[in-house]
């Protein structure tokens, strides 16, 4: 339960990798995180020794793998404080989770002229599924605006809610601005109007304490690969009453109780939403990743995040040529910026030459970029293994770039 940065860094073998002959500074955690040895070992172990398809297997290996899979579900359930194991659905990732809800919810509850509310700072994965659903059902999408600091304007949000509002979907933390959104308040307001809320937690789960009971959210989605777990696995948490109410999304093996050409009976939760062979080894790896961060302690991680983002702000604001996009009061470890007069792509490219991995572009949030009237930003996003020393190197690198352009 204490945060030992050296120990943590040692857990991540990729940090010892050399890029262009120097050690990598990995500031692209918003896109995906690196994996600790503990997670890599579990994946390895399962492929080497225990791999077998889960559920209904009569044999020893299948049993062992099924147990590990269901234990991973329990680990996640405990981590986010859900009521029941079966409220944890394994999916392919955040995008898959949101699409599942967008489809199934619309199928049952969305009708012509109904409304869904999202925000102006959503990732495309939390925009397009709702656009598709609204188009299919002839419903309307309404947008919560944000102010120039990158904070959602709650008064405007309240005004958007009508009798026709069927669901609200917002992100926990903005992947472009780092804003920690007041989701508990957003949920409270929605619930006082009997409207369910989906939280896109792709950037939330690894940076904030997520207690779905305390938040009272109806759905919470996240990806394994952004929370130090493997690729191709994610989670949809849903309250039982909603998961029971929604029709299944995909059809296939394991999601049914019985199939005949006349009548197919769907299985109970969580299997109703886990059609086909899931990424069971990915799920086991994700369970291990959650254990890993739970072991460090989310409170310690929040402290570390705060240290990094405060330091990054302070340093970058020392450079007069820098504009930071997103200066919300509550902000997590993502910092988006531009060097005045220099294209974000040029900056990213030159930082890469200096062994600093950042992301550049719209970060899949085009409407947000439109808000600021820009085409993209340079984004440094931090993980548990990043340090203030690395931010110093970024600071120096930015100054070098500015010099290259000045002369």
């Amino acid at each position, binding site marked *: 339960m204490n945060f030992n940065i050296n120990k943590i860094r040692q857990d991540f073998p990729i940090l010892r990798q050399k890029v262009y002959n120097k050690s990598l500074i990995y500031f692209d955690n918003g896109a995906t995180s690196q994996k600790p040895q503990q997670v890599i070992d579990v994946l390895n172990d399962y492929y080497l020794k225990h791999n077998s398809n889960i559920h*209904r297997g*009569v044999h020893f290996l299948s*049993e062992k793998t*099924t*147990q590990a899979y*269901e234990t991973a579900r329990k680990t996640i359930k405990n981590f986010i404080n859900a009521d029941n194991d079966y409220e944890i659905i394994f999916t392919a990732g955040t995008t898959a989770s949101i699409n599942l809800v967008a489809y199934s919810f619309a199928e049952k509850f969305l009708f012509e002229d109904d409304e869904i509310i999202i925000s102006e700072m959503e990732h495309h994965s939390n925009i397009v599924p709702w656009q598709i659903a609204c188009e299919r059902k002839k419903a309307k999408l309404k947008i919560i605006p944000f102010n120039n600091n990158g904070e959602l304007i709650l008064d405007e949000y309240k005004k958007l809610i009508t009798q026709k509002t069927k669901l609200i979907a917002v992100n926990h933390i903005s992947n472009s601005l780092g804003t920690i959104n007041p989701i508990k308040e957003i949920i409270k307001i929605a619930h006082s109007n009997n409207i369910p809320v989906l939280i896109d937690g792709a950037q939330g789960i690894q940076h904030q304490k997520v207690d779905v009971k305390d938040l009272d959210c109806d759905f919470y989605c996240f990806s394994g690969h952004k929370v130090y777990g493997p690729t191709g696995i994610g989670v949809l948490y849903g309250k039982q009453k909603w998961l029971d109410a929604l029709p299944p999304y995909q059809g296939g093996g394991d999601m049914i109780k019985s199939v005949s050409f006349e009548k197919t009976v769907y299985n109970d939760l969580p299997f109703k939403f886990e059609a086909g062979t899931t990424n069971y080894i990915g799920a086991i790896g994700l369970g291990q990743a959650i254990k890993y961060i739970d072991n460090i302690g989310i409170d310690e991680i929040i402290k570390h995040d705060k240290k990094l983002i405060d330091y990054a702000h302070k340093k970058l604001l020392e450079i007069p040529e820098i504009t930071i996009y997103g200066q919300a009061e509550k902000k997590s470890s993502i910092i988006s910026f531009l060097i005045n007069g220099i294209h974000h792509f040029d900056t990213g490219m030159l930082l890469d030459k200096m062994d600093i991995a950042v992301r550049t572009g719209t970060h899949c949030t085009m409407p947000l970029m439109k808000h600021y009237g820009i085409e993209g930003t340079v984004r440094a996003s931090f993980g548990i293994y990043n340090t203030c020393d690395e931010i110093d190197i970024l600071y120096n690198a930015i100054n070098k770039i500015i010099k290259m352009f000045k002369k």
Partner: protein
Amino acid sequence: MTINEIQDQIIEEFSIFDDWMDKYSYVIDLANDMPIIDINKKNEKNLINGCQSKVWLDAKFKDNKVIFAADSDAIITKGIISLLIRVLSNHSPEEIINANLYFLDKIGLRENLSPNRSNGLNAMIKQMKMYAIAYNQKLKQL
């Protein structure tokens, strides 16, 4: 005999087997020796669907004791059922509710209880306890 006394008796019976084959052969014998359950009781209401093998469980309440009868289409499942009935049947709801079924572990048949085995045994034990709880509730209301 108490539930635990019966469990200990079974553990002792099984202690003579030193390989899995003798043990499973014995389980098969137990299944074959089980009294045939009334065909009327193998109805939809009593069916516990374990995906792979079916289990039928019937319960009645007599002289403050729960009496179970059961059957399965899979023989090993049925043999284990016969052990479960021997342990739990003919006891008070209270005793059944509080029973800790350690014998399956001790005789090395624990794996048969894994939910993955989908043989309905787990669901059956749950159902047996549910009956006991229900009868207990009834008792209190009297």
